[in-house]
């Protein structure tokens, strides 16, 4: 498998679900080691694109590749995915669920890693507690642990801070920062433009199933007369005329 600079390559991707075209024609790439922001208003196709990239949805046409090949759970590249719709086996204990997902991803010491992580996030004493007995914030920490437990090469976070309190948000940002420093590529889907400005190298703004802006954060800001990303977002999704990048 030839190793290219890009860990993710999407080429002329199109998808139709239930007779409705969600993505018309989308092409972008994500470089190894970068933090990439996938932005857009609700229902514009961000999650659909990620699901198609991960093989959960079948593309109507076009190619979506991770590490040069169509993704499969058997792929050599290690993926960490925090979906938008997230949940866990609610009636099982924290440690059993974490160990199960660790084993599914081929970890040999999944239980030991899970206990270390729980210790790190202050949930060590809840290891044997049923997940539905935990608070929402505590469950989010468990989900985050499961997402990063196999030291992923590519981390995909779909609205990771949705519903997070400032403490958990800070914890997540620290973890993202740590993983990025270790060379992990991150795709971030978020509505928080401050996070994007702070973390992302490149961004893509989706509208009506196409990319209406794609490139480096500074280049896009320059194109929009150095407005901040919040203002650009409002300009684009407030139905103003935009030019495709």
């Amino acid at each position, binding site marked *: 498998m030839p190793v290219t600079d890009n860990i993710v390559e999407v080429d002329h991707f199109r998808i139709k679900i*239930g007779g409705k075209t969600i993505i018309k024609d989308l092409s972008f790439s994500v470089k190894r080691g970068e933090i990439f922001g996938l932005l857009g208003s609700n229902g514009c196709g961000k999650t659909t694109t990620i*699901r198609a990239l*991960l*093989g*959960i949805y*079948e593309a109507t046409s076009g190619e979506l590749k991770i590490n040069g090949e169509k993704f*499969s*759970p*058997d792929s050599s590249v290690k*993926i960490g*995915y925090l*979906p938008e*719709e*997230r*949940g*866990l*086996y*609610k*009636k*099982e204990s924290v440690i*059993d669920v974490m160990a*199960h*997902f660790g*084993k*599914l*991803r*081929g970890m040999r010491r999944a239980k030991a890693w899970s206990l270390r992580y729980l210790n790190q996030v202050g949930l060590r004493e809840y290891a044997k507690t049923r997940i539905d007995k935990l608070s929402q914030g505590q469950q989010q920490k468990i989900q985050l642990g*499961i997402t990063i437990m196999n030291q992923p090469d590519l981390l995909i976070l779909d609205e990771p801070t949705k519903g997070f309190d400032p403490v958990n948000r800070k914890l997540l940002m620290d973890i993202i920062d740590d993983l990025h420093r270790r060379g992990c590529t991150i795709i971030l889907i978020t509505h928080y433009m401050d996070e994007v400005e702070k973390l992302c190298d490149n961004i893509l703004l989706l509208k009506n199933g196409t990319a209406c802006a794609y490139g480096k954060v500074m280049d896009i800001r320059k194109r929009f007369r150095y407005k901040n990303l919040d203002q650009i977002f409002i300009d684009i999704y407030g139905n103003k005329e935009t030019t495709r990048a």
Partner: protein
Amino acid sequence: MRNLLNVIRFEVVRSLKKPSFWLAALLVPVLFTAYIFICAMVGYNTGNSIESGSAVADLKLAVVDKSDYLKYFNFTNEADEEQSLQQYEEFDDALRDLKNRKIDVLYYIPSDFIENQNVEIYSKIEQNSITDDYKAPIAALLNQSAKKNVKTIDAKILSSELNYTTTTFDATDDHVIDFKEQLTKLVAPAAAIILFYILMAVLGNRLSVAMTEEKENRISELLLVSLKPIHLITGKIISLMIIGIIQLTILLIPVAAIYYLGLQRGIIPAEFAISLDIQSVLTYLALLIASYFLFTAINVLIGTLVSTAKEASSFAGFIVIIMIIPFMLLNVFTDGDNTTLVYILSYFPLSAPLSLMLRAVFNNLPDWELLIGISDIILTSFIITHIATRVFRRNAVDFSLKNNLKRFGKTRKDWS
């Protein structure tokens, strides 16, 4: 393969950890044991009241018969069976022995017994209700004697005391089969019917919601990135089958123990001692496992199509009704003729399990048809497993039944 084993281990262990599993698993044998115990107690008490009774079995009994009603009763031979029973010629001798505790109970049948039907009972045990307890042995003795006194064929017919000799020929090769052989042939398919029915009743609900948990808890997406759908679906089916086998084992152990003890203690008549035909047991075990595989696969498919446990339960109930149609049409099988309807029910995969088992019970199923039937069920189960895998992959993140059914049709088109 590694992930398949991981799914099986996770699913089996978490099921075994649930108190509800053990409650369901133990409830059936506990109820069954309680039922057997109650039946045995009722039988024991009834036996006490109509037979000589175990309470007086250890006592020495004596009879003085002045009426000659017991003349056909051979005390020398038959008293060997009741070693404690002896006959006295004279009442005074017997009474003296009673007072000297050589005998415990004395029955005096006076010369006018035929006219008055009165028996005198003497005993030396000081209890108020003692004569009540001592009625049974003499009643049994008189009963036996009465039977011996019936001499004419007319009287025997009227009292249904006829001997019957039954000879039954096997329908397939005309050889003579005896009762035990019939029982041996019957036991495996009959057990398969009972066990399959118990599996449907006890595990039906668990199976139907097995696949909806991932959807309801929003875990499907995470799972699809971690393992292949085929491993998840196959792992679920295998784990559910293992759980069913554990459930049956928990059920069968006390049943086997009760049966064995019942035979040993004489509660179960010796003619019901079954010698199992291994080939028959293995064949019907294969049919039972294949049928359970089909039932599990269908439930898993339903789980992949619907979005909530409630929806899954409704559909699963419908499937159970289809599967027990052979029960509803029982007379079609008991008639013994293999009509077109019998063949349709035997080869339609959903009704095949019970149809084949019923035909076997009513001695109407050739081996070759049984093998075709088992193959039919297994093949259908694999096809359903394959469809469930494809459907799960497509529908894992869509929580609308309407959309799932639409896409299910589309999925089928994609394969062709």
